[in-house]
């Protein structure tokens, strides 16, 4: 029954191996003929899995083998698909398949076409294994594997220096987060004696057995990994640079899937997080800060991909604080809708860049709707969704996040502050999104019309755009009506089952601490979390719509009617503008305070410790050996009498050895 689960990751893996081994000689320019059907097959099987889980409401499991059997430390490689996994599978394979198809056109004629179509399915395989894993060790393994694929694909144009640097930056910044994740896994094993998720001996079932401090430390360590992978403050700096990779890669890895691995990890570990209010607070604060910061930076950027990248950072922040405020379903819902509309936006960017002959500066574009109507229309849909306009996908999920924060049972008061700031971020989102749309697709041509002839992209590229646009329109309705849609019924069990256990644990802690408020909160939690009245839903829907439309209108005033001047505003708030334009100064700060001192330290370690001390010691020993050798060889004089003398001297030495008392015989005359 469950034996087909293995097919989902296996197909892309096989495709990757084929293209890696035979790409140079056999598949070459037809590498997509291997990869696209593989990912399509994987998508189809995921669909079957979704259907089965939908019908049976039971998780599907397939045991493969034991990777590390070492005493009490056992790491099995098992596939496990519950509702959360099923959603992730659908997201990864759907967007993955569309990006694969899109890449046929986008990467056409690239010198290392096969390499691209080897790395991309390799990434899909790793990502699928990550969400299918049933223990932290395997999650960690494939966490690193997706990181590797990301590294390889950011540096795909490795001859370009900036691409190489961006790849290194992404990899190194992620190391910081991965260190935390790694320590978290160790801590989990140390505490629980296992790394497995499920079962009565698994981690999630026994969260309540351990102290809150321990659980908090574990949760925070896991979240450190999420901060790196999901580009949260303060490790967000790698994601905008990662746009050096080919645009389909940005769409798939750095918008739709890999960056959501951190969100997935926290959602998967919700049993741990729910048991620690401190951890939840940290997640909320970091997420909220990231959402606001990302949106504010996106306002001032001019590189089309960077704007969308900062938008991604901001949206990931939305998901993170949704997790933190306990709106688990909203976070995953947003993860799913975001995957579609942000994938759409990135692919649209790719189409624009493709049509504009590799131009990425939005100041050198304009009026492109005339030249590329399909791209315009789909991009507009994506932008509306991102801005949160009814009834597109982004509206439903973002609205739910905001409502979730308002009624948060974890932080009843702080949640209100979160809501207000979230609205601010949403306003900025609408503004920067339509600043982009107006500057790129409206107004007059800001490029050399003599030489640059923008053109619509080929069918393999616009096809996925259209499909994604349709999905962006429709996907939100799986969450309709809000808080009570099919999506919530489907995925709710993942969080509710643990919510019950976790709140029990918290309740017991609360009783010990004699904390009344917590107990009340736990009580609420047990009664199925938050109940939202219809009035409240409509109220918030209206408010967020007003906020979004307000943002769009402001952008309209600036960039279409030009009744407000962007230049004048920028000049007036010069300091703020530069602050935002320089991305809050994080890159400079890290460069000066972290990278530069580290480089100096590395230089010191290299030039002094390594070259002088270590090499010096080694070379010194070698030199000493050589000179000893040169000296000793002179003993060989070639004169026979000297040789005989050596023998005689040897005898004297031996007598000496006996004289100093080495003898078991009690020799009187030698004493």
């Amino acid at each position: 029954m469950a034996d087909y689960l293995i097919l989902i990751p296996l197909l892309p893996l096989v495709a990757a191996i084929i293209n890696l081994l035979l790409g140079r000689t056999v598949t070459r320019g037809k590498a997509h003929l291997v990869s696209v059907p593989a990912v399509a097959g994987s998508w189809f099987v995921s669909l079957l899995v979704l259907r089965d889980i939908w019908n049976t409401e039971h998780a599907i499991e397939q045991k493969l083998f034991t990777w590390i059997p070492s005493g009490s430390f056992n790491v099995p490689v098992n596939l496990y698909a519950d509702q959360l996994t099923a959603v992730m599978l659908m997201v990864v394979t759907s967007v993955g398949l569309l990006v694969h198809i899109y890449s046929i056109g986008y990467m056409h004629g690239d010198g290392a076409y096969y390499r691209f179509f080897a790395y991309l399915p390799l990434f899909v395989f790793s990502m699928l294994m990550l969400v299918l894993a049933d223990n932290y060790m395997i999650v960690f393994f494939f966490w690193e594997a997706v990181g590797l694929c990301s590294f390889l694909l950011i540096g795909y144009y490795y001859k370009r220096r900036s691409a190489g640097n961006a790849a290194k930056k992404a990899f190194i910044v992620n190391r910081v987060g991965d260190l935390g994740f790694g320590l978290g896994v160790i801590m989990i094993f140390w505490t629980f004696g296992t790394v497995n998720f499920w079962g009565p001996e698994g981690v999630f079932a026994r969260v309540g057995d351990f102290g809150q401090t321990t659980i908090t430390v574990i949760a925070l360590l896991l979240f450190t990994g999420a901060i790196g992978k999901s580009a949260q403050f303060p490790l967000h700096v790698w994601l905008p640079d990662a746009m050096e990779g080919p645009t389909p890669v940005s769409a798939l890895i750095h918008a739709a899937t890999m960056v959501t691995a951190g969100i997935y990890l926290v959602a998967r570990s919700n049993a741990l997080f729910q048991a620690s209010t401190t951890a939840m607070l940290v997640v909320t604060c970091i997420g909220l800060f990231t959402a606001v910061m990302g949106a504010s930076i996106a306002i001032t950027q001019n590189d089309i991909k960077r704007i969308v990248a900062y938008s991604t950072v901001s949206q990931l922040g939305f998901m993170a604080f949704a997790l933190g405020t306990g709106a688990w379903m909203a976070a995953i819902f947003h993860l799913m809708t975001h995957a579609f509309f942000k994938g759409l936006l990135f692919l649209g960017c790719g189409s624009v860049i493709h049509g504009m002959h590799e131009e990425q500066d939005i100041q050198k574009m304009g009026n492109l709707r005339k030249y590329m109507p399909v791209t315009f229309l789909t991009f507009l849909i994506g932008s509306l969704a991102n801005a949160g306009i009814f009834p597109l996908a982004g509206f439903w999920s973002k609205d739910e996040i905001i409502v979730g924060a308002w009624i948060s049972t974890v932080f009843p008061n702080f949640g209100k502050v979160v809501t207000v700031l979230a609205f601010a971020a949403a306003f900025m989102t609408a503004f920067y999104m339509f600043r982009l749309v107006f500057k790129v697709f409206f107004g007059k041509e800001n490029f050399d019309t003599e030489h640059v002839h923008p053109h619509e992209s080929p069918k393999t590229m616009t096809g996925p755009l259209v499909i994604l646009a349709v999905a962006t329109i429709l996907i939100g309705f799986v969450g309709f009506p809000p808080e009570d849609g099919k999506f919530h019924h489907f995925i709710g069990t993942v969080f509710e089952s643990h919510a019950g256990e976790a709140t029990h644990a918290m309740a017991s802690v609360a009783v010990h601490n004699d904390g009344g408020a917590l107990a009340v909160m736990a009580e609420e939690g047990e009664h199925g979390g938050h109940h939202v009245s219809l009035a409240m839903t409509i109220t918030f829907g209206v408010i967020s719509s007003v906020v979004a439309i307000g943002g769009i209108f402001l952008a309209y005033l600036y960039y279409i009617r030009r009744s407000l001047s962007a230049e004048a505003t920028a000049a007036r708030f010069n300091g703020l503008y530069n602050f935002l334009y320089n991305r809050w100064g994080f890159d400079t700060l890290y460069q000066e305070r972290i990278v530069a001192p580290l480089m100096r330290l590395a230089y010191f370690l290299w030039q002094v410790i390594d070259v002088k001390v270590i090499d010096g010691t080694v070379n010194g020993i070698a030199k000493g050996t050589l000179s000893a050798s040169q000296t000793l060889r002179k003993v060989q004089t070639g004169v026979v009498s000297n040789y005989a003398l050596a023998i005689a001297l040897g005898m004297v030495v031996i007598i000496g050895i006996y004289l100093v008392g080495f003898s078991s015989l009690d020799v009187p005359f030698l004493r």
Partner: protein
Amino acid sequence: MNLDLSLDLISPVWRLTTPQLIVFFLALVLLMLDAFLPKAKHFTVLTAVSIGGYAAAIVALYWQHDKNESTFNGLFRADGLTVFLSLILLCAAILSVMTSASYVDRLEGRMPLGEFYVLLAFSILGALLVASAGNLIMIFVGIELSALATYVLAAFAKRRATALEGAMKYFLLGMFASALLVYGMTWVYGITGSTDLDQIAAHLQGVVTGSESRQPEILFALLLVVVGLGFKIAAVPFHMWTPDAYDGAPTPVTGFMSVAPKAAGFAAILRLLVQGLGPLRDDWYLLIAILATLTMIFGNLVAISQRNVKRMLAYSSIAHTGYMMVGLAAYNSASGEGRFVSLAGDTAQSDPGITSLLYYLFAYAFVNIGAFAVITWVQHRGRGMLLEDFAGLGQTNPLAAFAMTIFMVSLMGVPPLLGFYAKYYVIVAAINADLLWLAVAVVLASALSAYFYLRVVAVMYFSAPSRELRATSTPLLNAGIALMAVANVALGLFSNQVLDLADFWSGAMTVAQAVASR
């Protein structure tokens, strides 16, 4: 009693001596053939007869393998030690014939092949007699028979001054050492009243346990014996003849000299020090251990600054003597503890130290003769013996370079080659005997040796070839090199089986069942 002894002397059990007799008659037959066979047929016939003779002796060894008897009134012993040492010596003989035949026949002004084979046979015969000796006199006679033949072999390239010089030094110092050895033997006889190893051991056992009067003079005898035999195995500081003699001798002879006379020297040590003076183990093991350390360090250190590969291997062979002596130092008269393997059903007690020494000797025959064989191979093709002459061999002749690499790496002691296991067992034996520092010394000395062994490999693969090799055909030599290269890998992979044999035979060795003297 006396009558019985003389009867044994008059009508000995000849069949026990079959392998040794075969080699003896081989020498005689070779002499006859050399005299009466037409010159044109010398190469083929003499070589075939030599190899056949040694092979027959190996086959004859099979019937000796489970014996533990003596004849000629105890002069001759057929025990496990005899068998294993004889096997090593006869293998070395066959390999030497294979590697030296064309060299002697063609290079250095066409040396007389018949004489060469005869001398080789007598040298082997002498070594075989030492290996089977049960008596001081027999040991001395065997050593001298082997040495005299080897002196001549060392001088065999008589047109070359360095050959004569090296051989002359070897001879003079050899006489000096023999004098010391025989002086030491007279002291042993004087103290114990016997030349028979068992009776000597029995007497010394009494001395150690206190049932006999204490005779400190025995230490003097021990000293003289160690110096005399230390010379034979080229232990520092009695090694001085080695580089000159090895350098002067024809290259394949050097390979032979570094194995067979060394094996004979260790055979004498095993008979004399372990069987005869075994009860005094506590008085000599530290001495041997110190000499072993000196020998390892000195040999490897000086080898580093040699540019002549042959001379480098001469020093390397000194270093390997040191490793072997570690096995000897690890000899523990309280035998039976900490042994490697327990063979099903064996009754004798084996000693890990002796086992590792025997294993080392066996391995060394296949590694070192092989290394010298590749030098011979290069010389055949118009090159010298300097490092530069090996430049680019990896390009011009990958197979020869590969074989040389195997030998170098095996000498260095890298798994899974034969040389690794030899060193490994020696180290284990040293640790078992509570000589941890000695085991550490072995490892450090090996690290030193990596430099000059790998330098040969590096030169072969990373330097550009200097000039063309002369085209020539040396089928027998090639076969010998191939055989040894394969043996290095195969015997390395099946090292356990070889170790079992060494263990079995060292266990079967008739050690006077000495008791710990502490």
